[in-house]
């Protein structure tokens, strides 16, 4: 599992051909891995639904030290910026999760919607500072990849499902 996730991440980072990547994915899956699968248009459709559902009362500032920072529109956890990291850095000694739940948040500086990955920093107990719970796009466990109540430490190496804090990285523009 771990190596698959790492491999996927590396693959995505290296490939420029989407078609090639997806073909490779198919091969990996044929290799016997069982993962919750969703059609691309489902994920994208959900993202669209989130976008049309309007403002949430959060996510409107450009200050990563507050719960209202735009990227945190789907955040649930402790801000890594209060725990020895930043919104794009895990604190020293934690284990960065290669996986995350995702949200779609609007950047007030350009008015565009971005896909945000909320990547947990795992392996140490909860930092407890700057807890923020916004829930834009959050869905129950049946839509796992959108569930911000899940401990998103899948694929950590060494493996630990204890979360210290959570980051919010920009994965891409919402199409």
């Amino acid at each position, binding site marked *: 599992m771990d190596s698959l996730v790492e491999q996927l991440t590396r693959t995505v980072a290296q490939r420029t051909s989407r078609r090639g990547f997806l073909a490779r994915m198919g091969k990996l899956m044929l290799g016997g891995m069982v993962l*919750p699968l969703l059609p691309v248009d489902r994920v994208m459709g959900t993202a*669209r*639904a989130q976008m049309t559902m309007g403002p949430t009362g959060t996510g409107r500032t450009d200050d990563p030290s507050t719960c209202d920072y735009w990227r945190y529109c789907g955040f649930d956890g402790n801000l890594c910026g209060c725990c020895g990291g930043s919104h794009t850095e895990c604190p020293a000694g934690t284990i960065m999760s290669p996986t995350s739940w995702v949200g779609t948040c609007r950047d007030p500086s350009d008015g565009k919607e971005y896909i945000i990955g909320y990547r947990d920093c795992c392996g*140490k107990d909860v930092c407890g500072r700057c807890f923020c719970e916004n829930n834009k796009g959050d869905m129950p466990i*049946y*839509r796992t990849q959108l569930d911000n109540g*899940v401990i998103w430490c*899948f694929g950590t190496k060494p*493996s630990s499902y*204890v979360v210290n804090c959570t980051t919010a990285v920009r994965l891409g523009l919402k199409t």
Partner: protein
Amino acid sequence: MTKRAVYIVAIVCGLLTWCGARAQMPPEEGVKVRELPLAGPHWVFIMNPFSGTLQVTSVFVVDGDSLQIMGQMTGGITSAFAVSPDRKQIYMADTFYSRGSRGERTDVLTIYDARHLAPVGEVILPTKRQLSIPDSSQMAVTPDGRFVLVANVTPATSVSVVDMVNRSVAGEIETSGCAETLIAGARRFVSVCSDGAMLTTEFNDDGKVTAQKRTDKPFFDIEKDPVFGVPARVGEDAYFVSYHGMVYPMNFASNPATPGSAWSLFSDAERQAGWLPGGYQPLWGNAAKGLLFVLMHQGGGEWTHKNPGTEVWVYDLKQHKRIDRIVLPQAANSILVSQDNAPTLFALSAMPAMMQSFSALDGRYLGTISGLSGVPWEMFGL
């Protein structure tokens, strides 16, 4: 007497002081460990999965009539919880690491004697347990008490089938693309799928699938209006409620499950006034009276589905009609209703940590237990 003999062991110095004082003392008191009566219908189990640590899930056992703490259980990372049908045992599915937050992972189903709240056995589980905010969709017991179903998320979804007679894992059932283990019959459970369909799985005493069927279409619109994960259970019917307040009944007696007619919790006026369901555990059913209870808040708009509620709205499930609005003295995050004929409504607040109690039928406020330590999140009932 040797010099050595006039020395005493420090750890019993209190007792030895007793020796010296024996002539003039009242009887020495002992300490005993309490035993509990069999759980009553208004007992409630209050779970704290995130109280200053992610490594420990504490459960308070509360008598909902006296509003007193009866005891406590200590689990691991985001434990799952269930009570056996005969109320004699309590199950917690726990995850521990050999070094607390790291090291080797152990997933284990711990069996507690309900009268003593003490572990009496355990079954080692595959290290795949769903680790997320606990709710009652994560573990279930078959009506005969024979099997316990434990939800797995790796993030691939499956269910570990634990045989409580042999105290071993009988099998693992894949529920690809679907999550949750809602018990739906003697050897049947139901899962909700990522496309809004429902999967019904039947299994045998070997823990193997005998039938697994999906509804041919979604029973709600996952794009426009997703449902809360845990439905209100009323006999063989389950009532899913959407973020916008639509009720989607599903009958679990068939395989696959049979959808009923959807209806709205809100009038147009209420909807325009901004009422929405919400909370960590925003709905509960009472089978004896055919009632649905929903925690409601006003304002905030979309994606406030986890906001605390200020009122509990009560619906007659046959008439699809609201019959009561119970205003909560303190906003609450979770509700639970007991299953007896004189049901009690419990409303749990995370901060301040307290639980209010109401007569579920007439809305009368009955009392509060406050000063619950930590951040209580969920309730489990009998």
